[in-house]
């Protein structure tokens, strides 16, 4: 499969940076966007593709 998202095996992205498990959102707008993605997807008139 070829595509920009097919990152398996690619090189040059640097180290993995972990984050604490109780960190859910990095900004308030992330909360709203996540909820909108879930809710709008439920209308079945839009997908993340």
């Amino acid at each position, binding site marked *: *499969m070829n*595509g920009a*998202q*097919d*990152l*398996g*095996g*690619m*090189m040059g*992205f*640097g*180290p*993995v*940076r*972990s*984050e604490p*498990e*109780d*960190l*859910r*959102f*990095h*900004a*308030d*707008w992330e*909360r*709203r*966007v*996540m*909820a*909108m993605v*879930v*809710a*709008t997807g439920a*209308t079945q*008139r839009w997908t993340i593709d």
Partner: protein
Amino acid sequence: MRADDSAQPVSIATRVQALEAVLVEKGYVQTASLDAIVETYERDVGPRNGARVVARAWIDPDYRTWLLADATAAIGSLGYTGRQGEHMVALENTPDTHHLVVCTLCSCYPWPVLGLPPVWYKSPPYRSRAVLDPRGVLADFGVTLPATTRIEVHDSTAEIRYLVVPIRPPGTEGWTEQDLAQLVTRDSMIGAGLALVP
């Protein structure tokens, strides 16, 4: 273009607000629903769910057998069902084999047991290197496995999500399920870490 090009682009927060307002105005979503979704994934659904599954498997051999044979049903029996976790497979770590889970194409993740995926799981460094150099990735997490331990890397898909069952730490004989669950970290259920040693 006007002569003054120093105007700042509209902030992401403002754009998100505008998008939400438009979606609500057009009747696609309701504010209360959005609030409920946020609360669900901020408070109710997270890695502590998966930790309970793992602790149960450590204590109850029948549950462990069930989990390994039919993870969807075993996990579902604890109430952890729903979107992004409809088809689950449990992977048990042993001294011989360590499992690591990734989604190289996007960020497929078992939401009902682990909640929202962390940024690193969704980002290029992890997605690219997990399949290429799993020991290097584990080293980024401060984990070094014996050279004799084989590492199996599993690429999640839209259909299948994985829950890694880490090795039960030594010195925990007789512990309650509740106390054992506290040793199970989010990272250990992805395979990027190990359970905490008391």
